[in-house]
C-alpha cells in the first residue's frame, strides 16, 4: 500500500517492464495486492462497470445489430448489408438527409456570424460585462422542452399568435410559421439559434479575451482602424476556436431531434423530418415493434459520416489553423 506511487519513478517502472518478460514468478497476486494493484482496480470498478455496460457494450452492439434482423422476440438473424440497403432505398432517407443538411446550413447562416459579432462587441464592453454574458446565456439554461413548447405558442399561426401580434404592430403578417412547408424549417432553426447561441458567445468571449493586446497596440501604431483590426488581428487570432466551434456545430446540428419532434413531428408533409427523427421512427414510432436493424444501420451511417467528415475537416484545416 505504501508503494502506490511506483509507476511514476522511471527506474522502477523500467524494472517493472523487465519483470514482466523475464522474472514472471515475481508478479504473484500477492505482490499485485501489496503494490496497490488491487486498490487501483477497486477504485476503477464503478467506472468500468458503468462505461462497460452503458457505453462500450452498446457501441459494439450497434455495430452488430446493424447487420442483424432483431425484434426482441425471436432470435436475431444475420442479414448482411440488407438493413443498409433498405435504409438507402427508403424514399424518406433522402428527404431526411436533405432536411438535416438544410437545417445545418441554415443554423450556420443564423448561428455562426451572430454570436461572433455579439462576442466581439461584448469583449469591448468596459462596465458590467457580466450582465451581457448572463443575458446571452440565459436561453441556454432553459430546459429544451420548455423552450420548444414556449416557442410553439409564439409560432401560433393565427393572427393572435405572439410573433404574429408583434409583427402586426409593424404591419407584417400573419405568417403561417410551423404550418407552412416552406417556413417550418427556418422556424425550427430560429428557435435553435436562440436556444444555443449563448454558449457559443461565451466560448468566443473567452477566446477574444485571450488575444494578446500588444498585437492591437502594434496595429494601432500602424494606423489600423477598428474594423481592420477585427479582420487582420481578432479573426486570425481566434481562428482555432472558430474552426472548432464550426465542426462542433455541424456535428450537433446533424443530430437535431427535439425541435422537429416537438414542434412539427417532422411535418408538414415531412418538411422537417431529420435523420435522427427517422431513426427514432424506425425504432420506436411503430406500435407493432421497432425495426431496430434499420435504426442502428442508419445511426451507424450517420456516425460514420460524422467521423469521416471530422477527420477530413481537421486534415483540410490543419495547415490553416496552426500557420
Amino acid at each position, binding site marked *: *500500500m505504501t508503494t*502506490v506511487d511506483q*509507476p511514476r519513478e522511471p527506474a522502477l517502472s523500467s524494472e*517493472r517492464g523487465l519483470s514482466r518478460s523475464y522474472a514472471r514468478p515475481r508478479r504473484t497476486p500477492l505482490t499485485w495486492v501489496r503494490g*496497490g494493484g488491487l486498490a*487501483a482496480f477497486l477504485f*476503477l470498478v*464503478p467506472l468500468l462497470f458503468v462505461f462497460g*455496460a*452503458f*457505453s462500450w457494450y*452498446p457501441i459494439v*452492439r*450497434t455495430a452488430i*445489430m446493424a447487420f442483424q434482423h*432483431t425484434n*426482441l422476440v425471436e432470435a436475431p438473424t444475420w442479414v448482411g448489408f440488407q438493413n443498409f440497403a433498405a435504409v438507402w432505398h427508403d424514399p424518406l432517407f433522402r428527404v431526411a438527409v436533405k432536411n438535416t443538411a438544410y437545417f445545418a446550413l441554415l*443554423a450556420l447562416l443564423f448561428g455562426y456570424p451572430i454570436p461572433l459579432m*455579439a462576442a466581439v*462587441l461584448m*469583449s*469591448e464592453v*468596459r462596465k458590467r460585462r*457580466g*450582465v*451581457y454574458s*448572463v443575458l446571452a446565456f*440565459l*436561453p441556454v439554461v*432553459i*430546459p*429544451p*422542452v*420548455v*423552450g420548444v*413548447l414556449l416557442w410553439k405558442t409564439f409560432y401560433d399561426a393565427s393572427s393572435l399568435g405572439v410573433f404574429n*401580434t408583434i409583427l402586426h404592430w409593424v404591419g407584417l403578417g400573419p405568417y403561417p410559421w410551423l404550418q407552412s412547408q416552406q417556413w417550418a424549417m427556418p422556424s425550427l432553426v430560429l428557435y*435553435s439559434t*436562440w*436556444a444555443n447561441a449563448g*454558449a457559443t458567445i*461565451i466560448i468566443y468571449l473567452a477566446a*477574444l479575451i485571450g*488575444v494578446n*493586446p500588444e498585437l492591437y497596440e502594434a496595429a*494601432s501604431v500602424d494606423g489600423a482602424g*477598428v474594423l481592420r483590426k477585427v479582420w487582420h488581428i481578432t479573426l486570425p487570432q481566434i481562428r482555432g476556436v472558430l474552426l472548432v466551434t464550426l465542426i*462542433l*456545430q455541424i456535428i450537433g*446540428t*446533424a*443530430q437535431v431531434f427535439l425541435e422537429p*419532434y*416537438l414542434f412539427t413531428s417532422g411535418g408538414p408533409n415531412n418538411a422537417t423530418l431529420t435523420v*435522427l427523427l427517422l431513426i427514432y421512427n424506425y*425504432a420506436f414510432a411503430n406500435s407493432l415493434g421497432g425495426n431496430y436493424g434499420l*435504426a442502428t444501420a442508419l*445511426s451507424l451511417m*450517420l*456516425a460514420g459520416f460524422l467521423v469521416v467528415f471530422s477527420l477530413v475537416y481537421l486534415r483540410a484545416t490543419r495547415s490553416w489553423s496552426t500557420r
Partner: protein
Amino acid sequence: MSKPSSGGGLISELQWLKPGTRWGMRGLQVLLLVALVVIGLGPILWLAKSAITPTIDTISHPMALFPHGAAWSNLSQAWNDVHVGRYFWNTVVIAFGSWAVQIVVATTGGFALSVLRPRYAPLIKGLLLATLFVPAIVLLVPLYIEVVHLPIVHKSLIDSYWALWLPYGASAFNVIIVTRFFDNLPREIFEAAEIDGAGPFQLFWRIVLPMSKPILGVVSVFAVLVSWKDFLWPSLVLPNPNVQPLSVRLPSIELQTSVGVFLAAMFIACLVPIAGFLIFQRSFLGGTGLGGAIKG
C-alpha cells in the same frame, strides 16, 4: 492616466478618446444590450407573465399586460391538479441520483487514473477518449434494448430510475476533466501523506476529495442540469406517467389542461435551472463545461 476598466484591447485608448469611435461603440453596445434583454430575457418574462394571466387573456391578447387582472390560481392548479408537484419531485430524485452516480464514477475513476495509475490506465483513458468521438445517437437503440432486458441478470430497468442514473454516469467528459484536475494537484502532498502511513482510501477521502471542491462543483452543476434538461431518453425508459420527470410530462400536460395552467407548469419547470444558473454563474460562464453545448 486614469483608465476605465479596459476592454479586450481591440480599441486602443487613443481611439477610445475619439468621440466618434467611443460613441459609435457605446451606441452599438447599448443596442446589443437592448437586443439581449428582448431576445434573452423577453421570452422568459412573457412566460412568467402568462403563467399568472387568465387563459382567455393569453389567447386573445398575448402581448397585453394583465388586461383583466392576474390569475395566481394557475400556479396552484398546475402544482396540484395536473400533478406538476409530483413530476417536479420525480425530476429532483432523478437529478440527485444522476448527480451521485456521476460524482462517484468521476472521482473514483479519476483518482485511479491520475493518482494510482495502474499499468493499464492508458488503455482505459484511450477508451474514454474514444467514446467522446462517438455521437450519442449510436447508443440510443442498443441502450434501450439493454435496459428493456439486462443481459446476465435478466431484469428490466424500464420505469426504474436506475435506467437514467447509470447511463448518465457514463460521461467520459466528467471523468476526463476530473482526471485533468487531479493531475494538477501537487504530488508532494500525496507523498507526504503516504510517508505518514495513509493508504489509497485515506488519500482519496481525506486529501484528494477535499482539495477538489472547485471541479466537483462544476461537475455537479452540469450533472444536475443535464438530467433536468433531458427528454428523449427518460421518455423512452419511463413509460409510466407517474414516475416521469417534468420535462417528459410537459407535452402531455399541454393537451390535458388550459393554456394558463400549462404555461404555469412550464414556468415552474424553468425556475430551478434559472436559479441554479444565477447562483453558480461562474461554473457556467467559466467555459469548462461548454464543449458539449454547441448547436444551432
